[in-house]
Structures are given as structure tokens and as C-alpha cells.
């Protein structure tokens, strides 16, 4: 964000601008129309239904949503570490233009851990209880780097543990996971994920299982590591506070679909989807401290029987007939972020109609201003 502002302000050379554009046009990871389902005894559970996004080099992308909205499944689909019953049924996942879904076994093993790694939600269960911390980090190092001996790998492990702020790393590497606290284990997970300096780091609710003071430390650590190592991060969480603090771009998910995407400002100050609005109403902040919080009524949808139209319609206060029948398309909002809600379509249609009427009445008077507005808009869009 800031970069582009700077470009405008200082008018940096064309070349640099080109580079930035290229960078943005060739995302390190591009997910296109992803559908992932789990085939259980009771039927097909459609966990992800057409999610698309781009992850740019060195950026942090946040995915928010409640439990069962498909955010973790999206992350696991990228890594191809879904449970046995899960399968990507449609769509593409492009890493530097190559489809991850078409990788053979060898390419996949090289992709996982080396190019793309993941930090899981629960550090308590995500480390193998029967191996030492050291041997688990060493394994990743020995698999993907030139350090093939245990000695060389251990040296690197100690370095990594030091980097993620584990005290006495020489001692820790010979300890077992159960001897470490939750925060320490999550640091170990991060060290393990960063062992091979991946291009992409997926953090699947990395702070959910930790207590609040540790949460802040871990987030701080991730942010500083990201600045140091420059990898792109996908941050999956249901914690809006975390998202606001960390992310360059945010995707709000519901029922396996993207509701709204934009910057933190777009999402927090100008939400355009009823679900996002509800989500924001349900968290406390300074302004509504005295008021009662408004929860979103109803319960998450059943992914076994997805509704025909908008996934959120049954819980939406302003649902319309069309919401029940048709899936809302993604539409650009006046401020430039995207939302998929029929209410926006309605609003835009009404506005257009009003403009037409007004335009007919005052062709001359209105012409200048509308043109100016339009200019502004296109100008902005091109930046």
C-alpha cells in the first residue's frame, strides 16, 4: 500500500513502476475457483465453493470467517494435506504459474516445506510427541537444504530457534514437545516452518490456542520475520483484531465462499456485505463499549446441504427473494473493494435509475460533475 503511495508522490522511474506492476501481476500464489469437498458417509460436504484470490510476494493476506467457513480447508488444499476423505474437485492452485494440483509426488514433496510451509492452530498436538524438538526441525532442514548431516542441521536448528526467540536453544533441541509451554511450541513450529526459507507461509489460526499475552508476542514475531525474510503470508484466523493488525489484504469467507475482499480499512470502515457488518457488530470496541453487542442470529450453515442462493441468506436480516435463489456475484464497490451481496446490486441499480432520472432533468448541469466523478474513478482504478 505504502509503496504505491510513494511511487505516486516521488514519481519513481518507470522501470521501478514496471517491476512493481510485474510483481503484482505475477502473484506467487494464485487460487482460482477452488472447490474442495469431503466425501463422508452422510454425503458430500462442500467445504470450499469457488474461492479465488492472489497472494503477492511479500504480502500478508488474511482470511477471516467463523468455524466451518472453509478457511482452514482452503489452506490445507494449497498444501495438499487434506484428510483422506477430502478432495479438490474443481479449480486451480498456481504457484508461480504452475498448477500445484498437477504436481507429481516428488514435486509435491519438494513444494511442501520448502516453497510453502504451514503453522497449525494447536501447537500442543502438532508436534510429534515421541521425537525431540531438534530432530523434528532437523528433518525439514535435511530434507530440503544442502545440510545433509545431522550436525550441520542441528547448527541451523539452533540458529532458527534463536531467531524465533526460544531461550537456551542448545538445551531445547534435545527436549521433547511435552516439556515446552504452548507459546514455546508455537515458536518451534514457526522455526520448523521457516527452516527452508519458504516463499509462502500459511498460518492456520496460529494464535487461537495461545493465551493473550503470548498471542501478541507470536504475531510480533511473525511480522518481524516476514520483514526480515520477505515471504508471503496467508493468515487464517477468526480473530478480527489479529487481521486488522497484520494484513495487507483481507478476505472474508462464509459458507466456503468469499463474501468480501479488500484492505483492512475497506473491511472495517466500509463493510459492504451483511455478514461482514454483522461480524463487526459482534466485536466490542471503544465506540460501542456501553452498548449491548449484537450477535449474528442463527447458526453456521450445514455444508451438507448448501442453500441454493447466498449462503448467508438464512441468517441475514435484510435478505431478499433473490438472495434465496441466486448466488450473488462479486461486484466492485465505489471505493474499489469487492463484495458479493445482492443488496449492493440493488443499491447500485437504484442509484443508476435515480441518476438517469436526474440526468434527464438536468442534462447540462449534471454533465460536468458526473464526468469529473467518472474521471476520478477511472484514474484511481488505474493506479
Amino acid at each position, binding site marked *: *500500500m505504502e509503496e504505491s503511495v510513494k511511487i505516486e508522490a516521488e514519481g519513481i522511474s518507470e522501470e521501478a513502476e514496471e517491476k512493481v506492476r510485474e510483481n503484482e501481476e505475477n502473484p506467487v500464489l494464485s487460487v482460482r475457483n477452488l472447490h474442495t469437498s469431503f466425501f463422508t458417509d452422510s454425503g458430500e460436504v462442500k467445504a470450499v465453493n469457488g474461492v479465488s484470490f492472489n497472494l503477492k510476494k511479500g504480502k500478508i493476506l488474511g482470511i477471516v470467517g467463523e468455524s466451518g467457513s472453509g478457511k482452514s480447508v482452503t489452506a490445507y488444499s494449497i498444501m495438499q494435506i487434506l484428510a483422506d476423505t477430502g478432495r479438490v474437485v474443481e479449480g486451480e492452485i498456481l504457484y508461480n504459474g504452475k498448477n500445484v494440483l498437477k504436481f507429481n509426488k516428488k514435486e509435491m514433496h519438494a513444494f511442501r516445506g520448502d516453497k510453502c510451509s504451514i503453522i497449525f492452530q494447536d501447537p500442543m498436538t502438532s508436534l510429534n510427541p515421541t521425537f525431540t524438538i531438534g530432530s523434528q526441525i532437523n528433518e525439514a532442514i535435511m530434507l530440503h537444504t544442502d545440510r545433509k548431516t545431522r550436525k550441520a542441521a542441528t547448527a541451523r536448528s539452533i540458529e532458527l530457534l534463536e531467531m524465533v526467540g526460544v531461550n537456551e536453544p542448545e538445551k531445547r533441541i534435545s527436549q521433547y514437545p511435552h516439556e515446552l509451554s504452548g507459546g514455546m511450541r508455537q515458536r518451534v513450529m514457526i522455526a520448523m516452518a521457516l527452516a527452508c526459507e519458504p516463499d509462502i507461509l500459511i498460518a492456520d489460526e496460529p494464535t487461537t490456542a495461545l493465551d493473550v499475552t503470548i498471542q501478541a508476542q507470536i504475531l510480533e514475531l511473525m511480522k518481524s520475520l516476514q520483514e526480515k525474510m520477505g515471504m508471503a503470508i496467508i493468515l487464517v484466523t477468526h480473530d478480527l483484531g489479529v487481521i486488522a493488525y497484520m494484513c495487507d489484504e483481507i478476505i472474508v469467507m462464509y459458507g466456503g465462499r468469499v463474501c468480501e475482499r479488500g484492505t483492512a480499512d475497506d473491511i472495517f470502515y466500509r463493510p459492504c456485505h451483511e455478514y461482514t457488518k454483522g461480524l463487526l457488530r459482534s466485536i466490542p470496541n471503544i465506540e460501542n463499549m456501553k452498548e449491548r453487542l449484537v450477535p449474528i442470529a442463527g447458526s453456521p450453515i450445514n455444508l451438507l446441504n448448501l442453500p441454493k442462493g447466498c449462503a448467508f441468506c438464512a441468517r441475514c436480516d435484510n435478505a431478499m427473494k433473490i438472495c434465496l435463489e441466486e448466488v450473488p456475484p462479486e461486484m466492485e464497490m465505489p471505493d474499489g473493494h469487492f463484495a458479493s451481496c445482492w443488496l449492493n446490486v440493488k443499491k447500485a441499480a437504484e442509484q443508476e435509475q435515480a441518476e438517469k432520472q436526474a440526468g434527464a432533468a438536468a442534462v447540462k448541469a449534471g454533465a460536468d460533475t458526473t464526468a469529473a466523478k467518472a474521471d476520478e474513478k477511472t484514474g484511481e482504478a488505474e493506479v
Partner: protein
Amino acid sequence: MDTARKNPDMPLPKKNPLSLQLDLSKFEKATDEEKRQQDVMSESTTFLKDGFRKLMKNPLAVGSIIVLLAIILMMIVVPHIVPYTYSGIIKVEGVKDPGAKNLMPFEYSEMEKAYMAKGGKIFPHIMGTDELSRDYFVRVVYGTRVSFLVGVFASVIVVIIGVLYGSISGYFGGRVDMIMMRIVDIIYSLPDLLVIILLSVVFRETLDFSKVPMLQKLGANMISMFLVFGLLYWVGMARLVRGQILTIKENEYVLAARAIGAKPKRIIWNHILPNCISVIIISAALEIPSAIFTESYLSFIGLGVALPMPSLGSLASDARSGLQSYPLKLVFPAVMIILIVLSFNLLGDGLRDAFDPKLRK
């Protein structure tokens, strides 16, 4: 801000909504009724209902239940229908028929053939007869009865003692638990089969059951076997229940119950045991075959039920002497044991798959 705004060529549904011919009626507010119809939730189920449904979907478990029901029905009905007894020699018109020994299934002796020629009716020997001219089918049915009851009864004893002991030990913890578990450890390391044999020898000599007719019929061996089950086999169950309770005890709802002043007995009965009941039932179901196995071993080495009462183990043991000529006599009781044990094992597995919350996805 541009990162989001630019949204570089993504394969999104890029139809421009504004150019659509809008049907304004569709943009009316939906009623609650319409919304509710959309809210297709899966039917709400209780833990028991859901587990039972899962159990019924498991063909092996359903098959086992059917087999077990058939065996139970057979145990009840057959002695009333078949006109032979397990201990008496086959009689034709009230006369003992020593010629009816070692018959093959559905074969008749000379005397029976003569009687049938006269127009009399003889109930067929479905499994033949043994070397003492007794109907083998009835003996197998009675043997099944004995083995089955031993299994069920042993399981009941094990559950009662094990659950009581385990829950007390697990709930109170600390020193009580330490002492109680040491006792369990010691009993656990006793070689069970050896102790059973040892004690049945002792009991056979010391206990006098002649005054209690029903017990006498079963014999000292059976009684001592039950006593030994009661003394030894509950330790596994006690350990299991204790372990369960130790975990459940840590849950907040137990703390909540304690905070509102519930007494230990109430907490154990109302809050803790219902949460480990599935584990108890499953291991009780798996306890039955192990007791049946033990009974058949003991009968096999001659320490089982008193003669002439048969059990499946003693029938199989007796059949060994004439194995070459009459292998079927081993096959019938052996098949019965395998059927019963297999059914209980499969039922236990099915119950575990259906009711163990740990295995739920």
C-alpha cells in the same frame, strides 16, 4: 490500497450486474418463513440416537445381534421342543436304546427304525448322538446355555465391582487412589488362569454346595470360576473406569457441579458415569467372550462344569477321544463357541465405532 483495488484479472464471475435486466420483484425483502426454508439443518439427534443409527448401519454388528438373538432363542426354546434330555439315554417307547450311540446327524438306530416302521414318530437327531446314546443337539444347546450364562454372568460381576472400585479410586484420587491402585496392580500381575485353576481346586475341596440345588447342579468348579472372576477379572475394568474418571474429573462441568455444592456420590452418578458409560458397555461386551474362552479352557482340562452337565468346552474335550471317527462332534461345539465369541467381538467393535466419542469425526 491498490493491492485490493486492482484485483488483477481474476476469473471471477465478471458479469456486470448493472447491465442485467433487473427483475425488481426479486429484490423485495424475503419473509422469515422463506428464510427458514433455506435453513436446511441436519436433523437434530441425541448421542444415543445417533450412535444407535450408526450401529444399525454396520452390517457386521447387525449380523452379530441377529446371531446372538437366534442363539438365545435356541437356548430357551429347544429344551421345550426336543423330547430328549442332556443327561438321559435315548428312550424308545420308554425303553432305553443303547444302540443309538454315535449316530450321524439325522441317522436313526435300529430300534427307532423299527418303531418308525410301526408308524411311531421319532424326533430326528439333528447333530447325531454321543457315545452314551444321548442326543447331541440337546447337549450342545445345554452346553451353549452354560457357556453363555458364564460369560454374561462373569461380565456382570466384572462391571459391578470394576465400576464401583474404579470410580471411587478415580474420583477421590490422592492417597486413596494410590493404595487402591497398588492393590489393583498386585492382582493384575497374578497369573489369572493359574489362580483360577488353583482356587477351583481349593474351592472344590472346601466349599459345600449340596444344600443349594441350583448351585450343586453347576458344580463347585463353576462356582469357584464365578468367584475367581469376581476376585480377579474386575481389575481391568477398574483401571479403565479410573482412567476415564481421571480425565472427566478435570472437565469444567464437574468443577461447576462441585461449586454448587453437589456431593461426591451425586457427581459420580450424575456427571461422571454417564460420560464413561459407553466405554463401560463396550468393554463389558468384550468381557463376555473372554469369560467364555476361559470357561472352555477350564472345561477342556477337566476343571469345568460338573458331569453330566455339558459345556461347550467339555463337549469339545470329550470329542477328542473319538476324533478320527467322529470329527463332527468336535465341529458342532467348536462352531458354537466361535459363533458366540465372534458375535460378541463384532458387536463390541460395532458398539465402539458407534458410541466412542473419541472416534467421532
